């Protein structure tokens, strides 16, 4: 998108052109990473940090409950410093739970997003490479996935294999693959028909080489955009599934889970809901910011 916009292109050039000296370096940096992207990167880094060190950062154990201090308000709403973000309906520290939730949700969302992109890309490549009936089968699978409510898929997996985190991640990996598959197929067919992919194949390169080393990096930018959409959808999907008894379940916690159980306390104790919601919104925002930016960065023609 950025590439086609004249004005944007001019802006970029101009920044570089009239940028001598120290100020220029800052300007150049800001121009390469606009503040919002910086924020996004920082936020994602913070989330990753929290995810990794959740146990160590959390002031309390996330299951530790204090039935006498239920629904205590956070500090900024007049609560005590004992519980920075207040407590939930069982008197558990919201901050500690938030940290653990971030870990779980990010794990699920990241891993599942990767799986879904992987499945989609592989199937998309297969369809584009073989065309013919293979393509028809993949297209049928895509239709199938699109018309099958995810709830039933979830039911299928969890009913037969039980509800473990690893399995749940795999299950969520089935979400949104059809979008990646469509994109991969379309772009790959185009690349095969004209351009670089055909050229590399005609050099005598194996299909694997063509797809993995050439086509994949080239369609990555479009895939990234799709991934930035899949990511928040996965977080929301997870919260939806926990309600059907299919998602992350207590005593474990996740962002979606916190939002879901917190919804009954919207009026009495909004912090139980707002803290995880804010994390979801900010993380998604950061991801789409960074995703768009990365897309432009990854494309050498746009720099």
């Amino acid at each position, binding site marked *: 998108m950025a590439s086609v916009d004249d004005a944007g292109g001019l802006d970029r050039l101009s920044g570089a052109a009239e940028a001598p000296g120290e100020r220029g370096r800052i300007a150049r940096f800001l121009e390469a990473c606009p503040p919002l992207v910086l924020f996004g990167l920082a936020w994602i880094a913070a989330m990753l940090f929290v995810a990794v060190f959740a146990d160590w950062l959390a002031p309390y154990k996330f*299951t*530790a*409950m204090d*039935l*006498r201090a*239920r*629904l205590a308000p956070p500090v900024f709403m007049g609560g005590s410093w004992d519980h920075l973000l207040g407590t939930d*309906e*069982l*008197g558990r520290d919201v901050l500690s739970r938030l940290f653990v939730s971030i870990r779980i949700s990010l794990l699920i969302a990241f891993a599942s997003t990767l799986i879904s992109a992987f499945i989609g890309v592989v199937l998309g490549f297969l369809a584009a490479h073989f065309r013919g009936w293979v393509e028809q089968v993949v297209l049928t699978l895509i239709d199938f996935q699109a018309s099958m409510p995810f709830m039933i898929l979830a*039911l299928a997996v*969890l*009913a037969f294999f039980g*509800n473990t985190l690893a399995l749940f991640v795999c299950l969520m990996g089935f979400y949104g693959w059809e979008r990646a598959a469509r994109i991969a197929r379309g772009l790959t067919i185009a690349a095969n028909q004209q351009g670089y992919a055909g050229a590399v194949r005609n050099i005598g390169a194996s299909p694997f080489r063509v797809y993995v080393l050439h086509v994949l990096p080239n369609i990555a930018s479009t895939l990234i955009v799709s991934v930035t959409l899949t990511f928040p959808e996965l977080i929301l999907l997870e919260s939806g599934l926990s*309600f*059907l*008894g*299919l998602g992350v*379940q*207590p*005593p474990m916690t996740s962002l979606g889970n916190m939002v879901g*159980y917190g*919804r*009954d*306390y*919207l*009026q*009495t104790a909004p912090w139980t809901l707002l803290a995880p919601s804010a994390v979801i919104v900010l993380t998604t925002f950061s991801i789409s910011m960074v995703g768009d930016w990365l897309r432009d960065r990854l494309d050498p023609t746009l720099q």
Partner: protein
Amino acid sequence: AEADNRPTITVAVQQVVNSGALTPLREQSNVGARVFPMIYAPLIELDRQGDLSPQPGIAESWRRIDDRTIELTLREGATFHNGEPVTAEDVAFSFGPERMFGDTKPLGVDGQTETITADESKSVLGAATGPELPPEVPAIARRLWPSLKEVQIVDDRTVRFVNAVPDLTMEGRLARSGSSEIVSKKAFLAAKDWASWAQAPVSAGPFKVKEFKPDNVLVLEAHDGYYGGKPSVKEVRYVVVPEVSARVNGLLSGDYEFVTDIPPDQIATVEADQKFEIVGGPVLNHRLIVFDKNHPQLANPKIRQALTHAIDRNAIVEALWGGRTSVPAGLQWEYYADMFVDDWAVPEYDLEKAKQLVAESGYDGSPIPFRVLNNYYTNQVLTSQILAEMWKEAGLNVDLQMKENWQQIMEKNGDRAIRDWSNSAPFSDPVSSLVNQHGPNGVQQQLGEWTNAEFNTLSDVLEKSTDPAERKAAFARMLEIAEREDPAFTVLHRNVVFYGKPKAIDWKWSPTFAMDFRADNIRMPGE
């Protein structure tokens, strides 16, 4: 005709009926129990808002003929929703094979033990059609009336209930909600099929079904010919509002007159507005934790005892229920009256004792699964998390497992150890609860979770004996076995129902789950 300016009320419920049929013979649930008394007229009813004592219904009076027979005299002037009078023939029909028992035989006749014979001739997915009963109806009916042999018509206003075996609980069973409802024979036989009858049953209760859309809405219309007095509301609309917050918000914004199933944490939200209040309290239902003594970790009764002692029930009652309920004296209710065991209580909260029991048992710390449904019971998920923490305190490694449905909860796959349950006392005798649910034919034993030879012998005594003292002794001993010695379950607290309503509406709740909208129990503002 003269304009009917009686008010209409809207009740937001979590669900009208689970099964999609408006009949207790299919729907044995607490939600069903809320609406059925408004549709159906029973022979005997309870003083719902009072002391739960038996009161005349369609039956004006009744008397024992012998330990197997009761004779009831029917009230004069009771009419069905279609305007026709209630006759002895309708009563007999209501308890006859066409409506209740199908081709099942009463227990105790000719040594009959198996009451159900399945009909093999049905097509693969064929449903019951015509007036034919769905097969589960006779099964449920036999559960309610295991040994009822027949209902004899003595005269136009007199019927006799004849049991196959001696049974002291017949009056109780008659008064039980959901088991002595009278339906119109004519209307039943005229129905296209059972399913359509179950959508719009014709009985003689205060209201008649006007419209029913499962999972959506049930509209009841006043039955002006009701024998207990013309209802003061024209229509009751039960709308299904599954989300708690939606019910609360609907009440606050004036969309509903009543909302049900309000969790205690929402009380403050509702009562923050001066115009509204929450009413309600303990009902005839206890929340239990049920054990599977075949699970390797629970085989040792000491572990189960430790589990029962590690629970601080009062803390749960305080934290989750705002002190609006209490911990009962084990699996019994005060309205058992003479059968109530006074000096009984649930195992006391004693962490040290629990730890000691765990130590004595040689428990190796391996996980004990605890299967939980997602808030099937109010506060279920919260309670189970509290329990898990409390058990951890006592050194018991309880592993919370959220399940999607009851089947997964009940499934016997070696991994079943602890689960949630509740227990009702549909009539005022321990047979209705302890024997029915935990006795040899009760669900717990049928599922293979627990059994105890002495307990089972005593169950038989409780069911068959006609000597009150012997029965009471048996009951006390059974409680001791099932709650202390070889725990089958442990009682957590009384279950509670909370209704939200405007203060201006004068209405009394009932501990029976029923919502009573008859003229004498509701007064709208301005009346």
